[in-house]
């Protein structure tokens, strides 16, 4: 399992966990919410781009996510993990958007995703040239959100199975099954595509 940095910090800075910041926002220091926004903006943007496939729309969704989170901040239980709660809101926003519009995933935006999966499968990064990356990207595009989302959260979001379970509101066992199945499906789709070429 991928180890992960819980919080971002610059050199010499003290790590302040999300939940502490949220507590202080709830206690009146609303300006501190900006720290949360800046901390999670890149991660949520990447996540929503994978779901939506359109950077501009993803930006709007992320902005709405932060605003919704701010409005409902009192419903957050500070004993729980803030990031999972925030991702859940982003997930709902993205799904609502997908229901309205069709999913448009661009291959370029999937490159990071592709490389992460490849490296996790002990495939040397050098072996995966751009062409190959695009090919795997095409395979991932063929996956439904049901499978691509947990895969994205695991490899790009660097979330644990438990956190993914909280975000997607699925049993942990289902999360594991979906990730494994998604990996197999990507492999199968890619093999089929190669055969056709």
């Amino acid at each position: 399992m991928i180890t992960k940095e819980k919080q971002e910090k610059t050199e010499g800075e003290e790590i302040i966990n999300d939940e502490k910041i949220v507590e202080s926002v709830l206690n009146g220091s609303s300006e501190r919410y900006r720290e949360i926004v800046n901390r999670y903006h890149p991660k949520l943007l990447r996540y929503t781009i994978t779901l939506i496939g359109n950077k501009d729309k993803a930006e709007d969704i992320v902005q709405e996510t932060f605003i919704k989170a701010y409005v409902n901040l009192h419903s957050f239980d500070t004993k729980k993990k803030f990031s999972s709660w925030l991702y859940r809101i982003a997930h709902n926003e993205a799904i609502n958007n997908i229901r309205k519009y069709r999913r448009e995933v661009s291959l370029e935006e999937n490159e990071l995703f592709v490389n992460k999966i490849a490296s996790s499968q002990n495939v040397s990064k050098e072996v995966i040239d751009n062409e190959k990356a695009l090919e795997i990207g095409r395979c991932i595009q063929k996956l439904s959100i049901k499978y691509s989302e947990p895969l994205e959260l695991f490899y790009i979001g660097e979330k644990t199975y438990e956190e993914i379970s909280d975000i997607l509101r699925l049993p942990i066992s289902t999360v594991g099954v979906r990730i494994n199945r998604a990996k197999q499906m990507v492999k199968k789709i890619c093999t089929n595509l190669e055969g056709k070429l």
Partner: protein
Amino acid sequence: MNLEQKDDFGARVMGEIKKREIEMKPRWVFTVISVAVVAIFMIMLLLTTILSSFGLFRIRHVNPFGFLHLGSTGWWIFLQIIPWELFSFVVLGILLTWLLARRFDISYKIGFGFLALALVSIIFSIGFLLDCNEFGEQAEKNGIATILLKHDSSGENWAVGDVINLEKESFTILMHNNRELIVHFDSQTKFQPGQQSRVSDRVRIIGRVKDGEFWANLVEREEK
């Protein structure tokens, strides 16, 4: 993404919050919602359980399953007797309870399929226990939910009841709600398991109405 861009986005969101005069919903709103969800969930669970016990009560009284082995006519009678409307309410209740239960964190941790199974088991187990303790009879006696408890012990081609009187060519059965029915029989009438009924036997009958009288084609004694 560089630091400047990150700061820009943070400022953008905070600016938007100020511009649209967005405020946090107070904590009490969420407390009220949580309490309401729990209360509605409990009420739904209770109502569905009571409805299931009413359904079991009606099934116990006429035992539609007893007709199943009596051929196609038996199956047709079975379909007529089952309290479909009551079980439709139970299914609806289970569905609504399940949807409410999905709001709780425990629901996805145990799995939605398992949750549905657990709800069905809980509702029907408690419903069964209530029925064993004659909850339906008590409700009927006190005039509660009479529409839901009301049911027939006989139809155009069937009847279920206890034999209270025997004549040469007829017998009388006592049905639910102390209604009596005179059942006529002739040489064509089949008696199962091969002998005529006795007083106090519980019988299920397949028959027909002829000239305002109920004639039995088949009389089956039910094991008590």
